[in-house]
């Protein structure tokens, strides 16, 4: 005890020095803005993509990790009986072992009712927490909405914008008690995001509603995963906790202001608000050394030959969890106009274009799912095939293996669309993949 406290006393000034150094370096989020076609043909209106990329700075090994405030919400409805609940319990316990006493954890379980298994508490007695979790037995219905509500309430007890506040929801069934439409869950997610919480949704097996789960995760900027076999739960929980423990910035607000008559068309893959020429969107957090980006499609009016044409102003504000400061970044997207086709062709930003194409194709796949849901298999197929052609063309011209891979995927999806039996599983896979691609999820 004495030795420990002595060691701590020694460590403290050391830490302060390190912290001082790091804040002196003023580590910031890396904001890069780029245009898919930096040089455009003059005298004609055209569409192009702006990529706004944000990358979290590196977490230093030596420095104290940002404390996490996690609520694990476990489905213990009847369908979870047997191996599923057992694996879920063990996965949760394993994951909690990675936390330390600066972190706060709570465990909520739900069937037709909601139980607070572990009220929000500091992770000091892991055995006791594990014991409580092992007490969860499955039966009953699925009151998912109430479970998430109560989980969020547990987070609120220690809600702190300098912590990573996250609900991790595990469900294997349809929400059949309480609000259950994807829209309602999305609204809840949106509301929680405004409080600085995000919800990660893990769908287990083939019984859950993937729309609901992706909406909830999407609106609150959490992760989403489809886990077919319960054995994989432990792995997914580890990934998720890895993500949670690597958050470096939170409350990221992005504001894009299109200039000079440039008209925003749409934001690909993410929720955003477009008001005239202003676009606002937000991310709940940025992870260490992970790139998150936004693709904005814009329409640029015809211009005569020019350089340094201002397309848009990008402003980003966020809370740096390490310096505990509100920081903001600003960037201007510039374009040139040229009559020369060659010049235009040569200037194409391959990486940006690739990312944009990836998202465009992603949106198309989403449309294909919608068509398939309506029962129009042929139309869905043809959308995916068009998609494949689009990806193929771009993949060839940009020499991008990534896009060609996506093209193969699209073709395979078109094949597998038909079977009614496998559609349930396929749809879950598709939804998960689309979600991950749209949000650049790390796992």
């Amino acid at each position, binding site marked *: 005890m004495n030795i420990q406290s002595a060691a701590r006393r020694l460590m403290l000034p050391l830490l302060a020095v390190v912290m001082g150094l790091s804040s002196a370096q003023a580590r910031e989020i890396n904001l890069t803005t780029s245009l898919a076609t930096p040089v455009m043909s003059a005298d004609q209106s055209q569409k192009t993509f702006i990529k706004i990329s944000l990358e979290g700075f590196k977490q230093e090994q030596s420095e104290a990790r940002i404390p996490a405030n996690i609520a694990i919400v476990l489905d213990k409805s009847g369908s979870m009986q047997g191996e599923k609940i057992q694996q879920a319990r063990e996965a949760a316990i394993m994951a909690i072992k990675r936390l330390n006493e600066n972190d706060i954890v709570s465990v*909520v*379980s739900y069937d*037709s*009712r*909601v*139980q*607070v*298994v572990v009220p929000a508490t500091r992770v000091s007695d892991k055995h006791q927490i594990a014991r*409580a979790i092992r*007490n*969860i037995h499955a*039966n*009953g219905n699925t*009151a998912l*909405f*109430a479970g*998430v*509500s*109560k989980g*969020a*309430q547990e987070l609120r007890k220690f*809600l*702190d*914008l*300098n912590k990573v506040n996250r609900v991790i929801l595990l469900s294997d069934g349809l929400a059949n*008690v*309480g*609000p259950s439409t994807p829209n*309602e*869950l*999305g*609204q*809840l997610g*949106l*509301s*929680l995001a*405004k*409080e*600085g919480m995000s919800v990660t949704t893990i769908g287990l097996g083939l019984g859950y509603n993937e729309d609901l789960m992706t909406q909830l995760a999407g609106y609150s900027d959490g992760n989403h995963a489809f886990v077919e076999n319960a054995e994989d739960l432990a792995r997914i929980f580890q990934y998720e906790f890895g993500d949670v423990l690597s958050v470096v910035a939170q*409350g990221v*607000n992005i504001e894009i202001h299109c200039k000079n008559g440039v008209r925003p068309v749409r934001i690909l893959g993410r929720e955003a*608000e*477009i*008001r*005239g*020429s202003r676009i*606002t969107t937000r991310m709940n957090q940025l992870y260490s050394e992970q790139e998150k980006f936004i693709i904005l499609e814009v329409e640029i009016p015809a211009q005569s030959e020019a350089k340094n044409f201002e397309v848009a102003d990008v402003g980003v*504000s*966020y*809370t740096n969890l390490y310096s*505990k*400061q*509100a*920081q*903001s970044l600003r960037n201007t997207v510039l374009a040139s106009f040229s009559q020369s086709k060659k010049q235009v062709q040569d200037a194409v930003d391959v990486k940006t274009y690739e990312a944009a194409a990836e998202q465009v194709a992603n949106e198309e796949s989403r449309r294909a799912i919608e068509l398939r849901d309506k029962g129009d298999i042929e139309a869905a197929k043809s959308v995916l095939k068009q998609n494949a052609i689009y990806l193929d063309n771009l993949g060839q011209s940009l020499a991008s293996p990534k896009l060609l891979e996506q093209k193969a995927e699209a073709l395979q999806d078109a094949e597998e669309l038909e079977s009614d039996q496998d559609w349930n599983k396929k749809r879950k896979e598709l939804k998960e993949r689309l979600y991950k691609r749209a949000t650049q999820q790390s796992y």
Partner: protein
Amino acid sequence: MKKRTPILLASLIIVPLILLAWFGVRLQSNQQELLKLQLGALIEAQLSDVDAQMVQHFARLQDALDQQIDDLYRSGNFTFQPQAIDSLIKQSPQIANVFVMEADGKRLYPMRGSELTSGERRFLNQIHELLATPNLFYDKPRDPTLVTPSLATQSAAPEQYLRSEPIAAQKAAPPQKITLRAPAVTYSADIVQADIATEQVVVAAQPQAGFDTAASGWIAWYADTRLHHIYWRRNNEGTVIGFALNGARLTADLITNLPTSPIQIQADAPLHNAEIRLINSRGEQIYAWGQLAEDALVKSSKPLKLLPLSHPLGSWRLEYYAPALNVQGASWISMALVILATTLGLSVIAWLIYREYQRDMRLAQQRVNFVNQVSHELKTPLTNVRMYAEMLEQSLPYDPESERSQRYVGVISNESQRLSRLIDNVLSFSRLGRGSHTITPMPGTVADCVETVVEHFTPALSQRGLKVVYSAEDRTLVQIDCGALEQILNNLLSNCEKYAANSGEIAIRSWSDAGMSYLRVADNGPGIPKADWHMVFTPFYRCSNQLTDGVTGTGIGLGLAREIARSHGGDLVIESSDQGASFLISLRTDMPPQGAQ
């Protein structure tokens, strides 16, 4: 007599048991009813508590929203700045949309003309009708929970809007504040306070100038099959600001305010073996808490109690589920035990009584046997006494010298005859009791029998100043048991001898009619009071008045006479007469001779 006793004893057990059982059942059902009522009241109180919590939540929400309105108004120099509203929507978890409308119906926010976001367009679409009926924000609803549009001539407020006054200030201090605006990050490069996450909003506010507190309220309506809530407020210039709440968030907040369920069933926890459900306007379960076991849940498909929630959650309700009341199981068992114990106790008592009674019966029987035996033993010597007395009477010479002896012998003979009649009575009585008394009709005339008896009685009667006048109207041969008739007459005449001394004439008349022979015996004595008529035939009963005082008797005579008459197919009844007692004997005398009886 022997059968009646066990029946009586059985009813001694059964009647109290039935009474006890009946009272028990009544008591039980009353108690159950009472319990049910108490439980009902308890449940209702519980549900009302929950309802109050909900109302309180809305009240807190309203406070927070009012505060926001004041802030918006003040920061915008007494106008609403769109940018401020924008940032409020962006930061508030509870508010989904806002609109501001001027008195003339002109929309200030979301801004006219300027580009709208898709969300705003959707919102305006939703509230289009609402904004088209500005009187929703003016006329006061008559009933806080109801809807009636008050101005029928103008564009009436559509029925689907449930309007209510602002929620009255709650007495209890709100346990938790609602932070409407999420802690904001200030966007400046300057170092801001490290602890940004402190509450920024709820500061005590005085009623704001420019706002009439009364001009506010809630509107709830359905769109897209969901309940939407708007809180609005109007300032003095008539500008209305309305907050549309995030419905999902509202539901989540309501759920958050409600208790969770225990992990394992705990006997002492509230809502043991019960569940409360929150049901929305579409009849869907929003939330449930309690600890009703899953199998009981299936069984109790009907709620024990229902409570509609107060406005603005007007169409929602609370349902209380619990298995049907059957707490009385234990008391039924105790009830049955009480009845069983009572049965046992009563049975023991009845058995004891029965045994006592049996012993008494045996004793009585022994006494009767003894009397019979004695009577029999007396009969033989008495016969000898009579016979020798008569023989002596006849052998005495007829001279004055022996007159005295003659008189003595006469007394002996008379008294012994009386004694033998008495013994005959006793023996007949016991035979009747045993049911072994038989009538043996023989051909004979009634008059002969009567004359024999009268002849026997004449000396004794004349000694007591009585005289029998017999008139026989009929001397036909009939089937008659002369001994039986003689015994009946013996009894009647010896009564006359005892009770009607010195009254002159005893009139006996006999006649026959339709196979029956009738005999009327009437004296001129004091008679029998009418009140005693029904009793005189009862064995061992003797009228008690000055008449019977000092007169000995067994008390079986008349009863025996009637029994004999009845067993002879007739009866013996008292007739009313002006003077003295009058008895009518009827006998059946057309019976076939001996054996057919």
